[in-house]
């Protein structure tokens, strides 16, 4: 919340009037040079991917720098039909389920952790938070065994359940901070009216905190859409693979068809880029309060 305020204030603050504008412009030259240099470093490879995704392989080999002679939109159709559509569907199913489950369960947990007084509350809080320190790599082997034992290996659940479990700590942290800010009076008057804690949760806490819940959804979606290691190991069937793991197969299938491969990369990256561009505010708010990557 505060970060957003800070951002808002900054952007609407008029630039301070300085007497020596010429001097400050000259001082700015090294800064702009660094920005432009780094801009090229970041933007050029992305631009290269975009333009070459519209070319034939021969054209990429002949001249990968130039704009395409004719824009081959068919590369995209070809990529879509060569497997990307299936991966895309799987990723969508896994991402939507993970987001809904994670945010719903974390909201429940955050509610339990903020609106009640009980013994062991701090211990529970620490248990929830400490999960953030543990990286999935470390429990790969037991997790693999566990997923086999539960009989969910090679199903969507083999991805969804571990994703949710690993995203809960950060999401609880995020939602808890927002729930702590909800004034006590609101729920007290609801209790006087005879509402149960469940009604208070669904009728007051959820509607009141939609922005933070949305932040939770955006961050979870970003994590889930891009997660690679679990997707590679816990699902074997081609038909169930999500995009990050599926792309490995896609690459092997298309060895020499570069244009189509690049088109596939473009399709895979697009949803999260679009989500980010439209929901930047929520992304940054989540980063600010969480400060923990994937």
């Amino acid at each position, binding site marked *: 919340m505060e970060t957003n305020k800070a951002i808002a204030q900054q952007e609407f603050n008029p*630039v301070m009037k300085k007497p020596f504008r010429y001097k400050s412009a000259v001082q700015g030259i090294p800064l702009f040079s660094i*920005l432009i240099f780094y801009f090229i470093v970041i933007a*050029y490879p992305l631009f290269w991917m975009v333009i070459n995704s519209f070319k034939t392989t021969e054209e990429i080999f002949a001249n990968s720098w130039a704009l395409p002679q004719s824009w081959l939109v068919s590369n995209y159709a070809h990529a879509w039909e060569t497997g990307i559509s299936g991966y895309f569907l799987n990723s969508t199913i896994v991402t939507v389920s993970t987001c809904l489950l994670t945010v719903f369960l974390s909201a429940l947990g955050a509610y339990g*952790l903020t609106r009640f007084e009980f013994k062991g509350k701090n211990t529970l809080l620490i248990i929830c938070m400490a999960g953030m320190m543990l990286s999935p*790599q470390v429990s790969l082997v037991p997790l693999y065994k566990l997923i086999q034992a539960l009989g969910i290996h090679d199903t969507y659940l083999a991805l969804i359940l571990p994703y949710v*479990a690993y995203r809960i700590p950060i999401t609880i942290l995020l939602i808890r901070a927002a729930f702590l800010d909800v004034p006590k009076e609101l729920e007290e008057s609801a209790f006087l009216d005879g509402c149960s804690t469940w009604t208070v949760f669904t009728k007051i806490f959820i509607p009141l905190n939609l922005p933070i819940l949305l932040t939770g959804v955006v961050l979870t979606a970003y994590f889930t859409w891009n997660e690679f290691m679990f997707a590679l190991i816990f699902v074997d069937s081609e038909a169930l693979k999500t995009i990050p793991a599926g792309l490995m197969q896609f690459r092997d299938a298309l060895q020499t068809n570069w244009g189509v491969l690049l088109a596939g990369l473009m399709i895979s990256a697009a949803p999260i880029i679009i989500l980010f561009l439209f929901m930047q505010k929520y992304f940054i708010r989540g980063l600010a309060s969480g400060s923990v990557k994937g």
Partner: protein
Amino acid sequence: MLSRKVVPFLYIAPCLLLMGVFVYYPIIENFRFSFYEFSAFSPDKVFVGFENFLTLFQDEVFYIALKNNIWYAVISIIFQVFGGLVLAAILEDPVTRFVSSFFRTVFFLPVVISITVIALLFSFIYNPDIGLLNSLLTLLGLEEWTRAWLGESETAIFAVIAVSQWQSIGYIMMLFIIAIQAIPKELYEAAEIDGAGKIRKFIYVTVPQVKEMLFVATLITLTGAFTVFNEPYILTGGGPGNASEVLGTLLYNSAFFKDQMGYASAIATVILILTLLVSLVQMKLFKTGKDG
């Protein structure tokens, strides 16, 4: 009517259950597994004591991997933490304000793109024949520098590390931007009155004021460096030979290629201890820094 005592636990229970089963239980199991020898599909486990660890510490690939992880850590601290901080400071400088939100968005873009997409894109960029990097070097007249970046054992790991930097600098930069925006403007104004230039303001105002984020960013970067898997796995698979092996790929290969599950668990235990050590040292350093 449920008693007030039970109700909060009902709300927390689903989270605890999931985390217990999929986060905490596997960590404990992993410790146990590292003292056994077993394969993926057989239920039999043989207790071998510390043998997995002894084998690991005599395995020269383990040291190659560890060395590569340390390279990862050192380079990531320089580029992501230091580079990210400098970029953040530049984007928050009043001079660049009119373009900062554009650059901020572009610099952050690689963070949201899947690592598989980025790694595959870079395998094109590093392509020895027509890759962007070699073409660029040729264009600049540095033809003798061109090489098969991912195919030669001296450069493979650094080419992989470079991809990680390319992707992650924007993330750490964003964290620092958030921290810098919280610095009271009066501090900069006071420094200006004292005649401080941009560099002095950066050293004496920005850096001390974002110390907390500096701690968080270092922790994230170091933990990331010791648990890295995706980039080396996709770009080189640890090769050529074992030249770009890291602990993460070593773990994966032991478990799912050689089917040495106990040995892989021992590697995971080492990774866990390394990351915990890094966190502890960091917290200790940060505390003493705070007091002093």
